[in-house]
């Protein structure tokens, strides 16, 4: 069967295997850059891996017996989404799979009757409500441009999406900030444990369950950056440069802004985000008519 393995397939498989580790490196890089911005030296880039291994070996405590499965579900469904993405499947379906992962995290947070974790779960739900519609709207715009929801269609389409949907690209900044749990929109628990003593949605996770959540977070980061890189799918180096640009802006924003309320998060994403993508949509339609 090895002969049927085409190079595309090999790249996809390699990507799937590498992605979680790549996520760890990106998180390490994030910590380094953040430290430098704050005039600190910062940890080594592979510090997140040390942290993960340490977490895994810690004495296990659970808040309820569902926690391990739900934490596994968070990582597992993000990973499933990543596999679907690597094999260039349906964009909308990939986003639905991501929702599934988020629901696992939220339910796990609700699951332990801790006021902190419940509040975190609730806020995670609101974060999801803020960024997911933007992803769905972007996927729909992509479908209108390329004629299909399949990621494959973006690769086969001649023009880079960025040239057709610049405003939608800008809207991804909101998605990324909310998803990376960066200020000002880190309401559910910040990505860096630098602002709070009790870490919102993560409060009740410890040891290996927290390690699984962390692994899921890394994978999700690579996953979202990969989605953004599709704005220049014709040359993925440019695509990743675009994605990392937004990533860098998110880190800068994190260091500049304090946390805002969930209402302002929801308002910004639903007003500004919706407007950016829909305006892009209308502009495209008018341009096509002309």
């Amino acid at each position, binding site marked *: 069967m090895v002969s049927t393995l085409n190079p595309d397939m090999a790249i996809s498989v390699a990507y799937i295997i590498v992605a979680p580790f790549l996520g760890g490196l990106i998180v390490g890089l994030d910590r380094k850059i953040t430290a430098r911005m704050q005039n600190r030296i910062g940890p080594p880039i592979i510090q997140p891996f040390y942290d993960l291994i340490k977490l895994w070996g810690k004495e296990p405590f659970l808040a309820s*017996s*569902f926690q391990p499965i739900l934490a596994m579900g968070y990582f597992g469904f993000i990973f499933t989404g990543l596999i679907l993405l690597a094999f260039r499947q*349906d964009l909308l379906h990939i986003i639905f799979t991501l929702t599934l992962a988020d629901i696992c995290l939220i339910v796990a947070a609700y699951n332990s009757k801790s006021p902190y974790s419940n509040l975190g779960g609730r806020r995670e739900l609101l974060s999801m409500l803020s960024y997911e519609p933007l992803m769905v709207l972007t996927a729909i715009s992509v479908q209108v441009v390329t004629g*299909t929801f*399949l990621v494959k269609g973006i690769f086969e389409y001649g023009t880079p999406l960025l040239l057709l949907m610049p405003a939608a690209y800008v809207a991804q900044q909101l998605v990324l900030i909310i998803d990376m749990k960066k200020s000002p929109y880190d309401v559910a628990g910040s990505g860096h444990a630098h602002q709070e003593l009790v870490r919102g949605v993560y409060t009740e996770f410890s040891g290996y369950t927290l390690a699984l959540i962390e692994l899921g977070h890394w994978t999700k980061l690579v996953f979202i950056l990969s989605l953004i890189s599709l704005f220049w799918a014709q040359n993925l180096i440019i695509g990743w440069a675009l994605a990392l640009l937004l990533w860098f802006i998110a880190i800068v924003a994190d260091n500049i802004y304090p946390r805002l309320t969930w209402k302002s998060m929801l308002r910004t994403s639903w007003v500004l985000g919706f407007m950016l993508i829909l305006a892009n949509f209308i502009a495209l339609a008018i341009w096509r008519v002309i």
Partner: protein
Amino acid sequence: MNSEILISVAVILPILAGLILLIAGKGYRKVVVLPTALILAVTSILLMEERGFSWTPDPVIQTVVMGLDLLLLLYFLYVGFHNENVPVIGLTLIQALLVGYFEFTGGGHHGEPIMMVDGLSSILLLVINFIGSLVCIYAIGYMDEHEEHLDLERSRQPRFFLFLLLLLGAMNGLVSSNDVFWLYFFWEITTLCCYELIRHDGTEIANNNALRALWMGLVGGVALLGAIYIGNYALNTLSLATLIESSPSPLLYLAFALMAIAAFTKSAQLPFQSWLLGAMVAPTPVSALLHSSTMVNAGVYLVLRFAPAIQGTLLTYGIALVGIFTFMFTAIVALSQRFSKAILAYSTIGNLGLIIFCASMNTSLSYSAALILLMFHAMSKGLLFLCAGIIENRLHSRNIEDWEGLLAKLPITTGVMIIGIVSMFLPMFGVLLGKWAAVGVASSAPVFPSIVMITMMVIGSSATTLFWAKWLGKLIILPIREHRIKMEKVSIWYSISTLTILGLDIVASLGASYMVQHVVSIAVAPHYELAWSPGLLKLSTQLGSFMIIPLWIAMAAILFAGFLIHRYKGGNIVPAYLAGENVEGDPIAFRSTADTVVDYRVSGMFFDPDITEGKWNPWGTLVGILLNLIVLGLVII
């Protein structure tokens, strides 16, 4: 001959069974209901094979139907005068005038077949007879529990089962009528059953809500009669098939617009949403039946029936707009609801909106999306109502705030309920397959209507995810004081009904490819080419592909891995973090000032006071009325 017997069985058997139960004692209830349910389910499968036949019953029967129709109107008139309800009296009089005029001025039968079963009817028959029968079985157990608290001198169950079964028979008749007058007749019987079932408990609120359901139903009846009258005037025919196949004219579009209004009343679309919300005062089997397999599907059925005839007209967008607006509006209002049945009711109205949207958009993809949603929604919603009813009877509360940690108290029922909730909004189940296709429908429409529809759909879907997810979270909050999970006793009637629907839902979701290829396709085929290319692992359309089985495999792998890790790593269960102020041995209390022990509770998220029914519903109704007027107005253009 064979098919004629089958269709007669489907219509008459439930009615007969209901009449028997009216006189027979309590002991006969299961002896009658169980075989009836079984026969109905088998009949609906057999009818799938026989589809494509038509039949005209004996003229005597036709006269009987006419007579019964007048009797029914007389009864409505009595109800109107008895309750001094002006809308009911007025609307009934209008109908009586129209029916009378029609019968005495040479209206009537023109030789077309009266009954006709095609692909669309047979899908509806499957839904009605499978889910509906299971709800009746559930009712055997439920009504006994229900009457325990009521201290009645005489059981009111005989009349309850009569109307429950009559509703099934009427629905079977409705979806297999080709003669619009018969359709109208069965339509009115469903209105009657709905009225009688909602007011079953006889309380004042039940009576008021039943009257509201009645007058709204009668609005639909008037609209339907109007459509019949116009159709007969324009084409001199009473055959639904002829109306749909004949070349379109503005007059005919008016008839279809009126049918759409009639459909909105039955499917509780804005501005007629309030009757279905009021219906939750009735015993649970009524809600389960109205929301999942009968009543509300009558409206959807009508839209699916005439939709191919309005292809390419503005009317398409008008009706679609009502549907999609209803979807968005109800999803947002559902966020604020605390009562389980109210959330379920809003979700039903919203999903029906989505189905009507898909049905009226009139492409191959949209038509199949509507059917997929119709079938899977019926199963999931039926399941949810049945579980909600059991839980309500146990806890004596329908407030979901009181359902906290229910998984430990009622593990089986809550477990099924959780799967039911998951099946409404997560991609392992068929409902989301339908929604996925619906997004494709909205995005591939012409760009300007598309923008409005997409925005509404995205907002609606996000709100839907939110209200289901927070409910899901509430149910499995775990440490509670009674931490040990106790096994619950579930009566045989509850187990049969809920587990069968659950099984059907899972099997149908896993076999979605088969469902699309062999069930949905039979209703789509007469009008369009099937837009799907179903495979074993994924269902593809021109727009993309949806994968259910791979997700189940992923889920199995995750469960297995999670189980292994848990097994291997273990971990003691410790109390939640409470800033160090935990109370030893009491998981839900903390130490307050001066070491006072205080219980804490976590409340749900309901967005007060931004979203409340009182504030939002008037606006929703207003927009609904405007959109309905637009539907009628579009005919003129």
